[in-house]
């Protein structure tokens, strides 16, 4: 009897323990899995305007800001077509903000903004953040595009998280060009929020607030598709593959060199794995530069090729359910188009200015740090070719010609100053070139500087029998093919776009200049303090409309905040009269 009781107790303990362990296991599996939320200033834009955004990167388990990924990706795409805009941002402690300038040429329609981090690519595209926005071309007067099928509830005015007195304005109705002071009272939270004040759109919003999005994540099951994507915890990671062009098979253990145009020989290398894949860390040094990839020591009888993976690639095209054509939003769009036209004409372009990117000086991955006695051919008599230069002014370099092809050798100081029987590494304008023939025609007039390192040198796990680095006067590498297998790749620069500036109407000296705004205020980083009231101010414009004050963000403990309020702006002089 006693034994039976003991067994029952044990079984119960075991059951509870199993459930607890199972939950812990599920949580642990999802730990490191991130989720993204993208807040935008509005949901309807005219091509040529800026989309101001704030990106939140969360740990999908703790729902707190993730410190894992340092890079976030944003893609803007139209249904069934290629991305219209691609942008990557630096994420700092789970937050990034910036703006996307919408090209004037974008056709009218519904667009989708997709935001994600590299680790999210280990799961299906469904785990990415998706948000629909409407973009209208400034010159499109037909407006015959269709909107996304929306829920019956309009979400443009989202729910208030706390009491109704949370967002306080001194009054509800304002005149034109009037100062509005907003107080966020008794918030009792320490949080970082983004605030936007924009004209209430006549197009129904289908987006979830940050609160709703976070709730849905906890319910949405995500399936892992691959585990190959590493977190971009340091910088952007570039992935590529080496393929045998004849057999179409992946090439294993191939060494890929990366260097770019510079006055210093620079190098980064990676070896391909069993899938023929290689990965390279692209620090800020590589931002906006043309990258030269070359396979080192490719067998002469083989034809290999380097393929670079697009970091912005989305596996499926977007096919939204579109509403039948409705014309009730037309007046609102016409007004938006007119306002953009007026502001462009008077140079009051939404009160935005170019945001300078302030960054530390990027670190060049130098091939060598030792002091080298550089040779400047201009200091000597003019010489017609590199073989002549090597004979006359480079005593540590020897060029031999065999079957019409040149070969270079460097004197190795550690081996009693005898010429090595192995070829050195050659760099032209900072870029690795696989053959001395590429530089053989360079003469004194074209070369600025030559560095020769006459010893066996190490770079990481690789070692070379000397280095010849040539810097030309007019970046000859641009018109040179570094190797038959080399690939040139433009590494897009980080673009944080423009920043919003609150324009004081008093600063417009001429009263005849119209002052129309649909976005009155945008601040992506407003800090809410636990004890104090937080205030911010902006000015109304001549635009008669209802304006939504929308606040979204995250508290220190990971609680999502979403609140909105409405103010009315009345202009006694009608817009059309003006």
């Amino acid at each position, binding site marked *: 009897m006693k034994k039976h009781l003991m067994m029952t107790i044990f079984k119960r303990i075991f059951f509870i323990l*199993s459930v607890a*362990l199972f939950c812990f296991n599920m949580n*642990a599996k999802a730990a*490191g899995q991130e989720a993204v939320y993208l807040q935008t200033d509005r949901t309807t834009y005219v091509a040529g305007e800026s989309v101001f955004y704030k990106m939140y990167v969360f740990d999908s388990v703790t729902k707190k800001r993730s410190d894992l990924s340092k890079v976030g990706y944003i893609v803007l795409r139209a249904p069934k077509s290629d991305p219209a805009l691609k942008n990557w941002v630096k994420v700092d402690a789970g937050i990034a903000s910036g703006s996307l300038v919408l090209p004037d040429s974008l056709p009218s329609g519904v667009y989708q903004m997709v935001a994600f981090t590299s680790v999210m690519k280990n799961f299906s595209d469904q785990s990415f953040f998706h948000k629909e926005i409407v973009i209208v071309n400034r010159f499109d007067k037909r407006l015959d595009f269709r909107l996304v099928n929306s829920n019956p509830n309009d979400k443009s005015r989202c729910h208030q998280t706390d009491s109704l007195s949370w967002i306080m304005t001194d009054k509800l109705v304002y005149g034109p060009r009037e100062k509005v002071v907003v107080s966020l009272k008794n918030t009792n939270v320490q949080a970082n929020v983004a605030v936007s004040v924009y004209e209430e759109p006549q197009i129904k919003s289908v987006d979830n607030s940050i609160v709703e999005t976070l709730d849905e994540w906890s319910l949405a099951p995500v399936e892992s598709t691959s585990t190959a994507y590493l977190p971009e915890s340091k910088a952007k*990671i570039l992935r590529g593959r080496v393929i045998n062009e004849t057999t179409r098979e992946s090439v294993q253990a191939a060494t890929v060199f990366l260097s770019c145009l510079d006055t210093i020989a620079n190098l980064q290398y990676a070896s391909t794995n069993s899938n023929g894949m290689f990965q390279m860390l692209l620090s800020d040094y590589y931002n906006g530069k043309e990258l030269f990839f070359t396979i080192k020591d490719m067998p002469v009888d083989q034809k290999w090729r380097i393929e670079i993976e697009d970091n912005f690639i989305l596996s499926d095209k977007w096919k939204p359910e579109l509403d039948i054509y409705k014309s009730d939003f037309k007046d609102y769009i016409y007004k938006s188009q007119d306002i953009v036209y007026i502001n462009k004409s008077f140079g009051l372009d939404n009160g935005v200015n170019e945001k300078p990117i302030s960054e530390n000086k990027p670190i060049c991955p130098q091939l060598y*740090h030792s002091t080298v006695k550089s040779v400047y051919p201009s200091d000597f008599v003019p010489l017609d070719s590199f073989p002549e230069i090597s004979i006359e002014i480079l005593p540590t370099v020897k060029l031999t010609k065999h079957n019409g092809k040149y070969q270079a050798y460097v004197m190795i100081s550690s081996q009693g100053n005898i010429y090595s029987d192995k070829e050195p590494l050659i760099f032209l304008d900072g870029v690795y070139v696989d053959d001395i023939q590429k530089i053989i025609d360079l003469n004194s007039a074209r070369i600025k500087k030559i560095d020769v390192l006459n010893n*066996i040198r*190490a770079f990481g*796990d690789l070692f070379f029998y000397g280095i010849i680095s040539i810097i030309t006067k007019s970046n000859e590498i641009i018109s040179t093919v570094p190797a038959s297998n080399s690939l040139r790749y433009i590494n897009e620069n980080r673009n944080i776009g423009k920043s919003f500036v609150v324009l004081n109407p008093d600063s417009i000296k001429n009263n005849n200049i119209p002052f129309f705004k649909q976005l009155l205020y945008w601040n992506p980083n407003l800090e809410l303090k636990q004890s104090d009231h937080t205030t911010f101010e902006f000015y109304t414009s001549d635009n008669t409309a209802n304006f939504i004050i929308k606040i979204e963000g995250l508290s220190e403990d990971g609680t999502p905040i979403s609140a909105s309020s409405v103010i009315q702006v009345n202009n006694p002089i009608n817009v059309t009269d003006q």
Partner: protein
Amino acid sequence: MKYYIGFAFLLMCFSINAQNNVTKSVSEVDTIFSPKLTGEIYVQERQYQGEVFYNNQYVKSNILLSTGEMVYGELLKYNGYLDEVIWMNHSNYKQFIIDKSSITDFWTKDNLDHPVHFQRINVRDTTISHRDIFVEVVIEGKMSLYIQHQILCLPDQITYSNGQARYIKTFEPRTLYYIKLPSNNFLKMRKLNRSSFLKLFPEQKKSISRLIKKNHLKLKSVSGLIGTIDLMNKESIID
């Protein structure tokens, strides 16, 4: 019963494995993309007497590069004669002299397995106007104390074997002490004793003497020197 225990154990293993995944992927990033060391081949002296290395064996050491990046667990030895860091590249078993200007600090171990922190400093010398040397960091503060573990090459010793003269290099260690002042200037001390130390601070000579006497410090040893500089920092004797 044993099945239950087995199942619980399996579940626990899964949990631990899942938890490790995040840490693993972050450390994988550090390993895959660790910064690269650069240097030139090191050719060891063939026959000599004495020792050219501060630490005889290669020990796993960490390096702070001038780029601000850290390299962990590389096999290093400090050559006091060349004043260079020698690196054993474990992938090709070749020894390289790491480019001096690429190193800011390195952390290694001495022959007694004690951790030692070295730093590259730029000091004024009577012979060369500016030069970079590697020194052991002993105190870092208002006034800092560094020790240079120099190895000197003495005149060749001649030995005769089978009637033939052989010239053998002889190396001998020498310790130099550098004190960095708040003004970032360096003072060099060749011998450890009270008078040499006081000579470096003619204006504060009396107060330092008092301090040494009061605290019963012996400047003939490194510990005495450390104690004195520590106290001078605390009492802000040098500004």
